[in-house]
């Protein structure tokens, strides 16, 4: 074999290997049979050219380009959207994408690979037109949340710095309060061990027992009858005021029968 042939073979092998590598990485695609769609975002959450596009979790295309368009407005709503992401979608998956499909930017895997997820639309809605601009769902701004929490933390710090004297005073007062509370608890503990207190508690217990016995007796039928009798007596004595007694004593005298 001539050296030229050998070198030629090697060159071709290298060329094929480069093309295969580019195809595996998604840099080249031989069957560009996809349809293009333009998705508008105001925040794209780190998506890149070449990131996969998925419908129902299946890869159906990739991000072709990312364009900044400062003066773009959505044709339907008139909303200002400044970022247009062009994506290609396989023809097979195209009919599942409808007017009511939603376009999310998601994370996958432990390394946080970004991808564009399309939710399938319902059959009642018409299919999208190739090249149509649709509004994507802006992903949540984690960085913004973090920066906001930093701002809150900063304000707390600022408040503490500004009111350093009063904060320290409050803390000192709280400290004193705790110390006093502890003292009180100790005193209470000491007191509970006093024999006099023990006696007092015992007496109280006896009184309470007696009280319980009394109230128990009060609930008996005999006691109920007595209470009812007293009640009736009181009712009968109710109209008995100063005048009536005077009249009674003057008119009836001591001969009067009480009942």
């Amino acid at each position: 074999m001539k050296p030229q042939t050998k070198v030629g073979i090697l060159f071709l092998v290298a060329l094929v290997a480069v093309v295969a590598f580019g195809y595996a990485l998604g840099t080249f695609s031989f069957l560009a049979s996809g349809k293009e769609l333009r998705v508008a975002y105001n925040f794209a959450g780190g998506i890149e050219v070449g990131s996969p596009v998925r419908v129902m979790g299946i890869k159906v295309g990739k991000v072709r380009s990312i364009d900044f368009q400062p003066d773009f407005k959505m044709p339907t709503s008139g909303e200002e959207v400044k970022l247009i992401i062009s994506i290609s979608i396989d023809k097979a998956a195209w009919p599942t994408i409808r007017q009511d499909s939603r376009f999310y930017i998601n994370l996958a895997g432990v390394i946080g690979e970004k991808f564009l997820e399309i939710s399938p639309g319902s059959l009642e809605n018409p299919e999208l037109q190739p090249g149509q601009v649709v509004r994507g769902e802006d992903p949540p701004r984690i960085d913004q949340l973090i920066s906001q929490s930093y701002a809150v933390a900063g304000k707390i710090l600022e408040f503490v710095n500004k009111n350093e004297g009063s904060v320290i005073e409050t803390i000192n007062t709280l400290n004193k309060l705790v110390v006093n509370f502890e003292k009180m608890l100790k005193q209470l503990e000491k007191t509970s061990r006093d024999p006099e207190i023990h006696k007092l508690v015992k007496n109280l217990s006896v009184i309470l027992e007696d009280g319980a016995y009394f109230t128990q007796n009060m609930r008996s039928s005999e006691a109920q009858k007595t209470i009812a009798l007293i009640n009736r007596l009181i009712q009968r004595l109710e109209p008995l005021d100063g005048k009536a007694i005077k009249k009674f004593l003057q008119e009836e005298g001591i001969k009067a029968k009480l009942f």
Partner: protein
Amino acid sequence: MINLWKDFAVYFWRSLNAILTPPYRPKDIFAQLEFVSWQSIPIICFCVCSAAIVTIIESSFHMKLVVQNDSLVPGFAALLILRELGVVVSSLLLTSRVGAGLAAEVGSMQVTEQIDALRMLGIDPIRFLVVPRFIACVFGGIILSVIANLVCLYCAMLVSEMKMGYSNGMFITSMRAFVEFKDLVFAGVKGACFGAVIPLVSCFFGFRCQSGAEGVGLATTNSVVAASVSIIVLDFVLSYLFSFLY
């Protein structure tokens, strides 16, 4: 030492002039290209495959030790292979195989006064000896670095399937998260630069060869050492420059 650098600067300038101006000798270039690339392929493929196996196994071991998980190994092993391992290993092998051969060949010609004979015939020895080898090594370096990288990656893919149980699809998906096409392009550029260093350094030491078998041996040794060190230093410079392009 200063004389050595002065001589190298003159030699480099003359070589550059000869390289950039025709005529070229295609037959000689292809013969050298066959020697550099075709004949080096088996040994380079064997060595980079071994390097790939070691890379995958060691990375997996370290990742399991540190984060109890080796799912990221295919991705960053692929990146390591493409950015450094494939091209540096193949270039160092090329230095020891081709560089030593060139230094010995030119050194023997110098000792046996064949270089002087060429001058007497009105032939510029640099144009006659260095230019075809330079062109062959540059193109050979590109071809070999590309093939070595992709063979190394393929071997890494096989090893990660057999050793760690990651399927080919998982390997490629993980690789796509880290690797870009320009990594291979930069590997090709590095291969070309390393390929250029080998004949320049080897022929320089060959031209400076002292008389006797001992002189040829010394020239060969010096050329391999100097070319290896140059490749490692150049690798650092190129890696630093390419870091601005990411």
